[in-house]
């Protein structure tokens, strides 16, 4: 149908209420509660959805990434690690892990499909929901193509709740909130991690 004809059919509606102001919200579980401390709430929520998390000073981040990768050797690295990019690349090389750039991995479906882990940064992290927020600038599938995802979160990227995150969404053709590993309970309600995305999500918050 033409746009105008399609829209014309929608004009018969009964009037509705005015659009409410949502600049301040009533108490809701996706926002901070009074007394919440940012990092503590983030860890609580992320752990509740089977993610793992550690707090590290900036200088210790690359060692933490190497440790989190465990035995994974086919590793792709996002280009969104900011200040941590060079140190992490160096530490991986020193540990004998020949990580490739995610951009390269995605160009070859066989390489992409065989990845054991990915390491990315993130644009934002949301304390009240335990989410990391990844922009398409870092790669749409970068955080979910491999069985293990390791994410480096600069502490200053941590925001309180969903409302604030939505106000400052990063630019990019897709913004993805991700809260813990991929899950399904479709078969008789048995919870299983790692359905399409990673089975393990590890977050390193860098102070």
């Amino acid at each position, binding site marked *: 149908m033409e746009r105008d004809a399609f829209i014309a059919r929608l004009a018969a509606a009964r009037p509705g209420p005015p659009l*409410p102001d*949502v600049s301040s919200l*009533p108490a809701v*579980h996706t926002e901070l509660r009074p007394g919440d401390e940012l990092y503590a709430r983030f860890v609580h929520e992320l752990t509740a959805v089977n993610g793992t998390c550690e707090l590290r000073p900036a200088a210790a981040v690359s060692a933490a990434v190497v440790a989190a990768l465990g035995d994974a050797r086919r590793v792709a690295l996002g280009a969104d690690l900011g200040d941590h990019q060079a140190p992490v690349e160096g530490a991986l090389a020193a540990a004998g892990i020949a990580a490739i750039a995610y951009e390269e991995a995605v160009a070859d479906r066989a390489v992409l499909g065989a990845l054991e882990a990915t390491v990315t940064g993130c644009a934002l992290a949301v304390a009240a929901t335990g989410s990391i927020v990844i922009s398409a600038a870092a790669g749409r599938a970068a955080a979910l193509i491999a069985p293990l995802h390791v994410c480096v979160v600069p502490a200053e990227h941590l925001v309180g709740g969903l409302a604030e995150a939505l106000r400052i969404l990063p630019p990019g053709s897709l913004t993805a909130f991700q809260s813990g590993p991929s899950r399904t309970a479709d078969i008789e309600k048995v919870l299983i991690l790692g359905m399409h995305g990673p089975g393990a999500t590890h977050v390193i918050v860098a102070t």
Partner: protein
Amino acid sequence: MSGDHLTGTTFEGRAAEQLAKPFQRKAIPAAVDGTVAHSRALFATGDRERLRELGRDIRAHAVANLPEYVAAFTDAAEANGTRVHFAGDATEANAIVAGICRDAGAQLIVKSKSMLTEEIELNPALEAAGFEVVETDLGEYVVQIANDRPSHIIGPIIHKTRGEVRELFSAIAGRDLGDDPRALTAFAREQLRDVFLRADVGITGGNFAVAESGSVVLVTNEGNARLATSLPRVHIALVGVERLLPRTADLSVLIPLLVASGTGQQLTTYLSIASGPRREGEPDGPDEMHVVLVDGGRSAILGTGYQDILNCIRCGACQNVCPVYRQVGGHAYGWVYGGPIGAVLTPLFKPSAEGLEVAHASSLCAACDDVCPVKIPLHDLLVDLRRDRVGRRIPGRFERLAYGAWSRAWSSPLLYRLSGRVGIASLRLLARGGVVRRGLGPLRRWTRDRDLLLPGRRRR
């Protein structure tokens, strides 16, 4: 895999068929009670009533002003490089999608879960056009292989046992996979991962479309919608035209309402906001993004007494608490939607005699009103639908006379009291020892499966 089992059947017949499946009657409460409890606990930590009022007002406002928001959405989406298509009905929607796939030279299509595509029966249409379509939500994948239909908005295979899934998957694997859900899930992941890596087109639904940003919002737990928007060269999102939200900020109200009501989670694992094809400098993503806005009977509801049903965000909460749904399951409702939302939508979208009858698949207990996150007065809409059906002379003559007399009697205090006395007196005639075991006339069906106790005497 037609979505319509209405024609030539009755609710009673379909329900009897479902009730004969002993697993399902236990499985539904087992599957949904956890969600209901988690949902209640989450909402208890906040101001649930105020949040629902905000949700209702945002939705009701958007639905009442669709011309403005569809225009704004389209302009913003096109500015992002997305192509927006307008489908008046199911046939047109399917033709648009097939056309996009053909133009893209596609063969293999991956789909993430979408109730709208069940409504319009997209899969058979695409298959008839020569495409291979693979559902990638685990539950929908099972539904597709079994040539079945989803029976719940959120949990499509709550009617299936692990044994049935084992059989289906083992047949594909060519060996017995056992009935551990872990092994079965791992098998599906492997199968589907390969499909994702090869697919040309990814089709998703859209939980919301945001007018100010031209974005489509998707919530999933498995991550399949996100893969479908990442790996294939073309992303097509089909969105019911009523699913518009004016502002990105509205998500801060509607996402917690949808997710807590639908799955009882703080937030789903994945919440994706898709705003166009891959941009310069981004490492992956589709070359094309298309949004198909689908009317499919929605505009006809605007301006009627049923407009509020368009505020629905398809969370499935009303199904979970409905005493009828919990017994008979989704398939008994005969079309795509079961439970209270189905009992309202089916008569409106499928106004045949069989479709209209579905409005009676409810006990009018109003449990659905209490859980609906956007406060849709489901109970009132169901009563109105029944009244309309009576007005359209679809029931028998006796039913019409009886309802007419009932309405007159209960409109006058004197006649109301009198009718109560007459009713009780006639019940006493039928009763033995305070219990009516076999009723007459319209009571016969009630007493077929249960006894009717006499009302107690009023004590003064």
